[in-house]
């Protein structure tokens, strides 16, 4: 792992700092100032942040009710929901993209259904930011629900019944009892999903707009099409630093969990 990941990453960081924009050796930040001075690069970075945050927000809004339902419900419908929730796990990203082009695209399934019920004026999200959000949320549902339900299983039924006995309503139970108890799984889902979304490629490439682009697409483009490996390297290092910050959050959460467990024992 050190050899395959840390060594080349460190090498890249050093290279971006010691060789300047014109290829001259010498310690300089010129590559980074060039990146942040270029409105298109900055727009792409901001766009990536924006998409990532929006996907995370929508993902939690969708997944919390689902996980709570799956935690407390039982029976046939619940198992059916469970299967449906896990289904995206088995669909490769590229298949999802082509399916969504058919579903969301103009004259696609969704528009036909909407027209059927008398709604007109549908504007397709295909090749727009919304399509990226839609697909990435869909892709991240199974993982999020799995982790959240696992976390929720640790909240005992007695605790909730007690709260209910003293007159707490559902909202209170959720914000005062459940949420604090599953803070850790939430943080884990947040950081791991952040990493996956920030570096996503297939979905923003096939469903997103030509401009602005998410960093994954932008890097590939700069490297392969514009033939500027140096610029691509700078973009990669910036992306890497942002992701390692979030990765650090994840590691800290996991470590503190281990520690509490040890203390409990």
């Amino acid at each position, binding site marked *: 792992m050190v050899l395959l990941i840390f060594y080349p990453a460190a090498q890249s960081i050093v290279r971006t700092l010691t060789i300047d924009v014109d290829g001259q050796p010498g310690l300089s930040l010129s590559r980074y100032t060039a990146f942040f001075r270029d409105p298109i690069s900055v727009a792409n970075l901001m766009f990536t942040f924006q998409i990532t945050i929006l996907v995370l927000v929508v993902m939690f809004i969708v997944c919390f009710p689902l996980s709570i339902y799956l935690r407390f419900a039982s029976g046939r419908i619940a198992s059916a929901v469970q299967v449906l929730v896990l289904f995206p796990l088995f669909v490769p990203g590229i298949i999802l993209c082509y399916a969504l082009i058919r579903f969301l695209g103009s004259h696609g399934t969704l528009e036909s259904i909407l027209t059927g019920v008398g709604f007109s004026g549908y*504007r397709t999200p295909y090749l727009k930011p919304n399509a990226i959000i839609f697909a990435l949320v869909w892709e991240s549902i199974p993982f999020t629900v799995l982790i959240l339900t696992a976390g929720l299983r640790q909240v005992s039924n007695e605790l909730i019944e007690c709260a209910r006995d003293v007159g707490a309503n559902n909202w209170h139970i959720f914000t005062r009892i459940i949420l604090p108890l599953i803070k850790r799984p939430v943080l884990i889902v947040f950081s791991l999903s952040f990493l996956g979304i920030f570096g996503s490629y297939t979905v923003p490439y*096939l469903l997103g*707009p030509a*401009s602005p682009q998410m960093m994954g697409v932008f890097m590939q483009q700069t490297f392969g099409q514009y033939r500027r490996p140096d610029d691509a390297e700078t973009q990669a290092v910036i992306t890497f630093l942002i992701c390692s910050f979030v990765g650090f959050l994840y590691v800290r959460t996991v470590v503190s969990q281990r520690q509490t467990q040890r203390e409990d024992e």
Partner: protein
Amino acid sequence: MKLRSLFLLASLLILGVVSVHAQDRKPIYVYTDSDTNISDWWTNTVKPAFEAEYPEYEIVQTIVRGVGGGVGDIANRALAALETGDDPQVDFIESINVESNADWLANDLWLEVTEENVPNIVNVVAATNRLPQEVPYRGSQVLLAYNSDLVAEDEVPTTYAELIQWIKDHPGQFVYNRPDRGGSGAAMVTRAIFEVTGQDPSLFVPGEFDEDLVAQFPKAWDLLGSIHSSIYEEGAYPAGNTPVLELLANGSVSMITAWSDQALQAINLGVLPESTKLAQLTDLPFTGGYSYGAIPANSTNVEGAVALANFLLTPEIQVAVVEQLGGFPVVSWETLPPELQEQYTSVITDVVPTWPGGDYGAAMVEGWYNNVATNIDRSS
């Protein structure tokens, strides 16, 4: 002479009566890394037709698509075999750029194809611009595909200027893909560059990078920028040739740029409706290209390989290139059946401009992304 033909007849009879076992026939090892439609066509059309004509040979096709460096690796293996005098185990490469590795040409890896060894090579048109080592056998060109239910025949643009005007007059009805994600969109962009540099593709020579020419690119960005908001969904550019065909197929747009072979095949398969028609610009057509086969000089079955090369250039296979692959013939259209010419009259052209790619390609793609696809002004 008499004896020879008698002998030939006798051997044919024997071949006919005694069923020929696979191992009795001399194999011709063919390698390809082209798309499925091409390798399938070889399996289903070329191989049976060739083996019926030349029962003494057997085509053994190996598909190396997506495997390492594809046919480039096979050529390198042949080069290594050339140096050691071993059997290269390859007799014909279906499609390769013989120039892409300088060592190949420097070591005379490829057999020179002449009238003597491949008689049909004389019929190949000049537009293919072939090197002596190349056997061009199929071509494809980007053209306009439109829905004739929505676009009247007399409305179809015949020049690039008319096309730009048509797009402005019909907002949302035209789409092309990102130029780095498929040749059909790239042709729309390169055609804009040709337009602003005097409609002379010969100015663009592979390799050398002419700063003066690149300095004129911004005029092309202005031209394409002027239609940006009139493109499908106010400037949504799909990421490939196929998504563009799909938008035409489902009626989202009524005109696109498309590869001739992909469009014709889609029409034949019913993916594109029958109302789909094709047209080519008459002032300067869109770019296109040919596929070139090559024979390693150290092949152990050169006779079989040149027979195959010659066979590919017969009218039979050239007609199949048009009808089955939707490609363009490499021989003059006049040598093909008149019905076929009539059917394709709107797209037939002897001018097939090429775009050099390389550094020009990088400048084209980057310029397009930074100036046409976005409304961010980089200079601000």
